[in-house]
């Protein structure tokens, strides 16, 4: 309070110093708000850039170019003996049909080298489709039908605009000759773009147009099942025991500190542990979801334990006292009241731990889940890979077409993560309780 104010008999809030202080406080608050706003805007911008770059690169992974060719199912190629024996039909050379169709379309191409280029317009996977058609309907033999076949990855890339036609030919992966064939096919309306179901139903492949994430998705699923089955019960039991039963002493303090530290251990260390124990000592199958799941369970355990302990601690002591006061044993109080009441929190923590495990790559590299596996795993012991590792593998591949596959796979992975986290939020909201 200034002397002047005192002289005038004014109150403290009328004094000059008070008003000055007030403006200063208000300015400080405005500054703080602005900083916060700036932080949020920066974070959101970066996030938007990330999402934009992934989506803009990756959305084309969900569509695929197809070339329609008039395929002549000639009997002399498929079934020269005319027996219609299924074994015969199965082992026939269907690539020949595609090659014949392409030759018929472009009769001017004769040299071996040019022919190889011509044949690469259509994916090597085309023969599978033709074989299935013939096996399902042997009547086709001898007929000629237009069939929509998966295009080769170069055609796909040109069609999606990823290859610049204006580059000089030497710098271009697709040569002028191929472009001219494409233009002819395009002009005839033989090139189409369809939804890429293969992306969701195929396993990995060396040929980008055939590569899909089904193998990785199934692998991730098996791995997460193992992780959940191992980590959830052990984690919850540990948390319950530590919170409700264990005596509070030096030993439990030590255990608590160690659990908290484990949550911060780099995940690759868990990979090394998995390698040392599950592969080298227990001799479980390499690259298998069971080993991946066990390793990730080790990694997820601390997260689940910490989340479960927090959820258990959040149950008011009055509930525990009410149960004990009625003559319930510790175990009854824990399992009749505290566990059910803390379950939403535990589940939320578990789901967040699992979504962490779903996105984990490093520990799985150590146990061999980084191998190229084309087959979709059909069990916990089959060699498999998981989605983040698949992304890593594709990002590492030289073919241009794997760029969009990588982004596409990232989008699928993010989709699953968002789904899992949304489910966690849903659980929390649904079972949230206020005392």
């Amino acid at each position, binding site marked *: 309070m200034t002397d002047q104010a005192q002289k005038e008999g004014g109150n403290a809030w009328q004094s000059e110093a008070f008003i000055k202080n007030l403006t200063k406080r208000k300015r400080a608050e405005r500054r703080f708000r602005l900083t916060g706003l700036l932080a949020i805007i920066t974070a959101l911008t970066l996030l938007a850039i990330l999402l934009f770059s992934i989506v803009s690169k990756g959305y084309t992974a969900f569509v695929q170019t197809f070339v329609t060719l008039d395929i002549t199912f000639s009997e002399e190629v498929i079934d020269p003996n005319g027996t219609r024996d299924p074994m015969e039909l199965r082992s026939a050379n269907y690539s020949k049909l595609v090659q014949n169709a392409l030759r018929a379309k472009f009769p001017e191409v004769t040299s071996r080298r040019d022919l190889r280029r011509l044949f690469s317009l259509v994916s090597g996977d085309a023969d599978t489709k033709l074989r299935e058609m013939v096996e399902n309907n042997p009547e086709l033999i001898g007929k000629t039908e237009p069939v929509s076949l998966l295009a080769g990855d170069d055609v796909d890339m040109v069609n999606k605009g990823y290859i610049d036609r204006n580059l000089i030919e030497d710098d271009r992966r697709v040569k002028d000759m191929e472009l001219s064939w494409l233009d002819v096919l395009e002009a005839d309306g033989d090139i189409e773009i369809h939804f890429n179901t293969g992306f969701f139903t195929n396993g990995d492949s060396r040929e980008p147009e055939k590569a899909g994430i089904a193998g990785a998705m199934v692998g991730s699923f098996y791995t997460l099942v193992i992780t959940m089955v191992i980590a959830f019960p052990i984690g919850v039991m540990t948390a319950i025991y530590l919170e409700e039963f264990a005596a509070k002493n030096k030993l439990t303090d030590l255990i608590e500190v160690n659990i908290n530290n484990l949550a911060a251990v780099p995940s690759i260390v868990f990979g090394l542990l998995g390698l040392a124990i599950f592969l080298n000592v227990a001799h479980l199958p390499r690259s298998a979801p069971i080993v991946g799941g066990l390793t990730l369970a080790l990694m997820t355990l601390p997260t689940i334990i910490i989340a479960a302990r927090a959820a258990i601690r959040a149950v008011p002591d009055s509930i525990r006292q*009410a149960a004990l006061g009625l003559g319930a044993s510790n175990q009854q109080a824990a399992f009749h009241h505290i566990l059910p009441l803390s379950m939403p929190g535990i589940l939320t923590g578990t789901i967040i731990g699992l979504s962490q495990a779903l996105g984990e790559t490093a520990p799985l590299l150590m146990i061999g889940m980084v191998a190229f596996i084309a087959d979709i795993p059909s069990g916990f012991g089959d060699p498999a890979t998981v989605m983040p590792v698949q992304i890593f593998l594709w990002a590492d591949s030289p073919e241009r077409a794997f760029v969009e596959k990588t982004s596409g796979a990232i989008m699928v992975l993010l989709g699953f993560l968002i789904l899992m986290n949304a489910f966690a939020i849903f659980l929390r909201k649904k079972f949230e309780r206020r005392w």
Partner: protein
Amino acid sequence: MQIQADENVEAQRNADHGVIIATRDVNVYYGDNHALHGVSLDINKHQVTSLIGPSGCGKSTYLRCINRMNDTVDGCRVTGEIMLDGVDIYGPEVDEVLLRARVGMVFQKPNPFPKSIYDNVAYGPRIHGLADNKDDLDEIVLTSLEKAGLIKEVQDRLHSSGTGLSGGQQQRLCIARALAVRPDIILMDEPCSALDPIATAKVEELIDELKENYTIIIVTHSMQQAARISQQTAFFHLGEIVETGDTEKLFTSPSDERTQGYITGRFG
């Protein structure tokens, strides 16, 4: 207990008023903190004994010794003797679960389980196996709610949540829950401190009825309440019992000047 002719009830009650709990030289330590210093107190059967005293004087600690709820507190140590019907409840052969079934407790803040009203009351009988079948259980639940004076208010919504009741109703639900285990003794730790005067009056009325069949020990901060509902009063101060005796005598002619000071509002 059946309602009989007045003098019979009176006679029976008088006959019943022996000492049910005798505590001798009870000391309680929370770690290094010596919370109760050599407390000795007799509790009479089928009477209301109120424990009064300023905050932190050890009255709740004493109360929680009687059903061994202090066992659940880490670092808590109890010495001395608490005899319930001649058996030391801290003796090795006493099971605290059984003890808590015999000595029920009502807490300061109403703490119904976040379950239905029915399940709240049925929980005790269920864990102790007091009911053979569904009808038995229904009977116990309804009787308990009736004894707690809550039946009229909740009979059409037995299966709605217990936490949806008002504060006073919740507290009576907690009393019904304690009664359902058929205890001999009910400990009440400031049961009315979170309630408004009307709800308080209902709970006090209930306590008055319950003393016909149960021994009640109540911790309270309200001296009026102690005077209204209890027959015996013990005044705690700094972890010791300063004075104990008939409520009427203690409030009208206290023998210790600290009691005098506390009940006249000079401190505490």
